């Protein structure tokens, strides 16, 4: 295992400490509870937005804390959901009296821990609403299973909903927007290589030189199927087709297109995928109203990418465009 770390045990806290050192104008990091909180929190009268999950997906979620996005992020160990006490600490730290929205990616661990945290918050008299993102079309949705995973849409949702909350919208409206964004967004990912969990010290799965995994999540798990390595054009097609079908995207519609790297894939390749994506969408007469390309929701050092399409309306675009100032996303400020 080759990583720029000191030890598997210390990587999460040291990385958070590095964030603190570089972004003390934006965030306060509590190393004890592994929470990242907006430097100016709590903001009286503003709905608080909290997200969280395992570490290893950087910049998600700590890198999205700041004006116009998240009020706090709770980070677990690598790929391990945070525990309710962390959410409790974050909720207390940022509650401005207007209620709090939990943004939860749909994984059993995340859902259960946030659920327990919501029970704790309720007991303290803090109003909490939750949105569970589940945009991953690689997984069959069903009432009888754990359902689809939450992946790329989470980033877009945190920005749009964060912008809305910053504008002063009440908890009900913020939650409704969160549901709408989650409802209009779909994603799918693929891996060229496995990631390496520091504590495990070696690749989670072995892939042949001519193989790849299609339909992966963000926890280094293998995907839905292992297939022969293909060209960027073919890979993009494999990812986009199920998204467009599931979203029933039609000619004339507008999307926010998000080409996300899994952590080990350089930008030059992500733009090749963006090129293929733009070609496919052009062919279907679907317009890219806004876009994002880069490593935003990652799986440690995994090489690969995911594509997210979000069918946008004017309101979503307005709050996407709204000023944001976080370690990882910044504009207008």
């Amino acid at each position, binding site marked *: 295992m080759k990583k720029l770390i000191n030890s598997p045990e210390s990587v999460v806290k040291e990385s958070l400490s590095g964030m603190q050192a570089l972004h003390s104008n934006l965030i306060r990091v509590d190393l004890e509870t592994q929470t990242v909180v907006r430097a100016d929190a709590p903001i009286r009268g503003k709905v608080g937005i909290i997200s969280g999950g*395992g570490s290893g997906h950087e910049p998600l979620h700590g890198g999205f804390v700041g004006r116009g996005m998240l009020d706090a992020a709770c980070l*677990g*160990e*690598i*790929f*391990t*959901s*945070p*525990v*309710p*006490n962390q959410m409790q600490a974050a909720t207390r730290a940022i509650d401005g009296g207007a209620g709090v929205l939990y943004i939860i990616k749909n*994984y*059993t*661990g995340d859902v*259960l*821990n946030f*659920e*327990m945290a919501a029970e704790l918050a309720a007991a303290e008299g803090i109003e909490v609403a939750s949105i569970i993102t589940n945009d991953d079309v*690689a*997984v*069959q949705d069903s009432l*009888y*299973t*754990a359902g689809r*995973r939450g992946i790329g849409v989470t980033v877009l949702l945190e920005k749009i909903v964060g912008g809305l909350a910053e504008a002063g919208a009440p908890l009900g409206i913020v939650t409704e927007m969160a549901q709408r964004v989650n409802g209009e967004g779909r994603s799918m990912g693929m891996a060229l290589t496995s990631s390496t*969990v520091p*504590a*495990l010290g070696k690749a*989670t*799965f072995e892939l042949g030189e001519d193989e790849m995994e299609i339909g992966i*999540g963000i*926890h*280094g*798990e*293998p995907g*839905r*199927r292992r297939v022969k390595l293909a060209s960027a054009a073919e890979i993009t097609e494999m990812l986009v087709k199920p998204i467009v079908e599931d979203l029933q995207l039609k000619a004339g519609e507008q999307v926010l297109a998000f080409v996300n790297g899994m952590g080990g894939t350089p930008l030059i390749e992500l733009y090749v995928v963006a090129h293929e994506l733009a070609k496919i969408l052009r062919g279907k007469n679907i317009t890219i109203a806004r876009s994002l390309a880069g490593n935003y929701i990652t799986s440690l050092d995994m090489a690969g990418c995911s594509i997210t399409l979000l069918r946008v309306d004017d309101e979503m675009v307005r709050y996407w465009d709204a000023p944001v100032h976080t370690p990882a996303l910044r504009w207008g400020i």
Partner: protein
Amino acid sequence: MSITSEAIIRWLQRVAQILHEKREYLTQLDAAIGDADHGINMDRGFKAVIEKLPSLANADIGAILKMVGTTLVSTVGGASGPLYGTAFLRAGIVTTGKSELRENDVVEMLAAMVEGIQVRGKAQAGEKTMLDAFLPALDVARQADLDEVEMAQLLNVCCQAAEEGAQRTLSLLATKGRASYLGERSVGHLDPGAISASYILAALAEAYG
């Protein structure tokens, strides 16, 4: 014969020991169909439990088990944290004030654990989870208690049923938890949570014996 508070403490110590020894193995199992952290998670949680045990030297079984529950909830994370945490919390509730457990108390405790796991996780038998170790264990414990089988034997059949249940997850298709994302590819792998559950029950038999 009955299980004393001291035996419960020995149980937890033994669990911590086994989970530490099996840390890599459980993590490997989780690497195949999950995210390669189950052994790490459980080891972290039970290490924290062990650190708190001294402060509970004279506590009743209920207090000890509740401490285990809250400690697991606040240190394990992932799916197994709230699930095992709730299981031990509920075990603590039904054993509140007790300083020893008889056969029917053990059945009640196991039933409370299973209920806790199901209330949180909403899984049924056969979904390739820790329940596939716990449920058969509860079934045989219940039957053994009806049959007035005495403690050592009850714990033995119980841990054997858990072990067999855990092994049967090999051929199951996962529909809950992280392994469900793999669909058909989850078949042919053991469920890490079922295996850790079988260790926990095995440790109880050992601690009593």
